[in-house]
């Protein structure tokens, strides 16, 4: 017995080292899996508070630039609202048939909401005030670019209706999806993550593919699984396909930058220039795809994916 204690004491350094190393590697590995929430992360109340304070201070230094960007976004929204021709305009009141009890048969008018009830996000009009499919505006308080797996932290949490698995979209296009939620903060797996895989399609002809990120360049991603028979055009728009029920269909991801045929593969290697500029991301929206819960249940029941969602395709 004494020898055992002596042995343990003599090698205490190596033993403690091995123990701590195993714990940290376990935490690291479970964290980098795409879906499983990790316990230690920046949605944690204390870390979130510090990061929010830091964002408050650093915001001050970007005010001019941020104002400019918001003004540009406003301008494009306004352009969208007041279309040059009358085609896409919405009436400011809608005529309803007379009520059955009304003996005078008066036509009633109902005013649609005074505020616009759609928001243009990534080339797609999304309902802004639909209570069952909320569009939650959020502020990015922490952002990474240069790691192999990048995450964002947002200043909204479960109190605002954010749930893990929802999509995150900026005005320019797809940003990522929510990973962990605390009461007032949420961490988001950025599109710049080695396990990213977003079901997408080329808008021109509807060819399906998968967006991946290779881990080197925050302005480009790879469009995978496009068959070699497909004809591609430089500058084509790539949008979400709506297959994975995280993002609504048709949200802008980027444009095709270049494509090569590699001899040992059945697929094109397509480089996509991402529409979102991740270096100065500040305001984003958390979105839901319609009928996600119902669709997940029926797909799980068929055995297409394990309960709680598999890989993001």
């Amino acid at each position, binding site marked *: 017995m004494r020898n055992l204690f002596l042995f343990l004491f003599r090698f205490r*350094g190596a033993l403690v080292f091995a123990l701590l190393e195993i714990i940290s590697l376990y*935490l690291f590995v479970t964290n980098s899996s795409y879906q499983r929430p990790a316990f230690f992360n920046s949605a944690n109340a204390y870390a979130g508070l510090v990061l929010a304070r830091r964002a408050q201070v650093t915001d001050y230094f970007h005010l001019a630039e941020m104002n400019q960007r918001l003004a540009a976004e406003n301008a494009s929204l306004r352009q969208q609202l007041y279309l040059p021709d009358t085609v896409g305009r919405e009436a400011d009141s809608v005529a309803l048939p007379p009520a059955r009890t009304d003996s005078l048969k008066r036509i009633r008018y109902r005013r649609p909401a005074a505020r616009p009830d759609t928001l243009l996000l990534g080339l797609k009009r999304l309902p802004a005030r639909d209570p069952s499919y909320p569009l939650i505006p959020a502020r990015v308080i922490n952002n990474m670019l240069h790691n192999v797996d990048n995450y964002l932290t947002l200043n909204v949490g479960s109190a605002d209706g954010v749930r893990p698995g929802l999509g995150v979209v900026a005005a320019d296009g797809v940003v990522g999806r929510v990973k962990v939620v605390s009461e007032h903060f949420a961490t988001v797996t950025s599109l710049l993550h080695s396990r990213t895989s977003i079901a997408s399609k080329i808008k021109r002809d509807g060819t399906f593919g998968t967006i991946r990120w290779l881990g080197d360049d925050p302005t480009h991603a790879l469009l995978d699984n496009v068959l070699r028979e497909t004809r591609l055009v430089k500058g084509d728009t790539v949008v979400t396909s709506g297959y994975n029920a995280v993002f609504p269909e048709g949200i802008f991801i980027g444009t095709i930058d270049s494509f090569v045929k590699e001899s040992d593969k059945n697929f094109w290697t397509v480089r996509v220039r991402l529409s979102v500029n991740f270096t100065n991301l500040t305001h984003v929206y958390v979105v839901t795809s319609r009928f996600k819960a119902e669709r997940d249940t029926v797909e799980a029941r068929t055995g297409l994916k394990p309960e709680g969602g598999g890989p993001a395709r």
Partner: protein
Amino acid sequence: MSSLRSILVQVLRYVIYVGVYVLLVHRLVLFDLGWCFLYLGFLLFLPINTPIVMQLLLSFAMGLTIDIFYDTGGLHAAAAVGLGFVRPWVLRLLTPRDGYDSVDTVNVHQMGWQWFSVYLTLLVLLHHATFFLLELGSFRHLGLTGAKMLVSALFTSLTLLIVQLLFSPVRRGRQ
């Protein structure tokens, strides 16, 4: 009394290193290649006679704190624990001819330029190699990772050297 005082000093150092790193230094990226792991200063400049178990626990705590802020799971912790384990070996390797004095600390002015630069370069390089290879999880993009390691090691070492020159006591025996 003096042990209580030294514990307080270490706690204060911990808070300062984490604070400065999270609020300020983490933003600094050189050419998309170089990061400054300033918080390593806390581990590297611990007293030379720190017990190994204490040292490992401190490394783990420091790494995990940084991990919590940047959602890296246990990446910083793993690399920092590795550093904490290797540090006594490097210290033993670099022992002066007549051994360490009881008042010796890791300090440029006391231990000399040569000793200090070898100590810093060796440990920082080892840490960065573990860190970036773990982060990648494989040996792809070896060139890019190698460049990251070298530039970051240079950046970190220079910053820690400046920290030493600014804040470490020149006279012996004060702590």
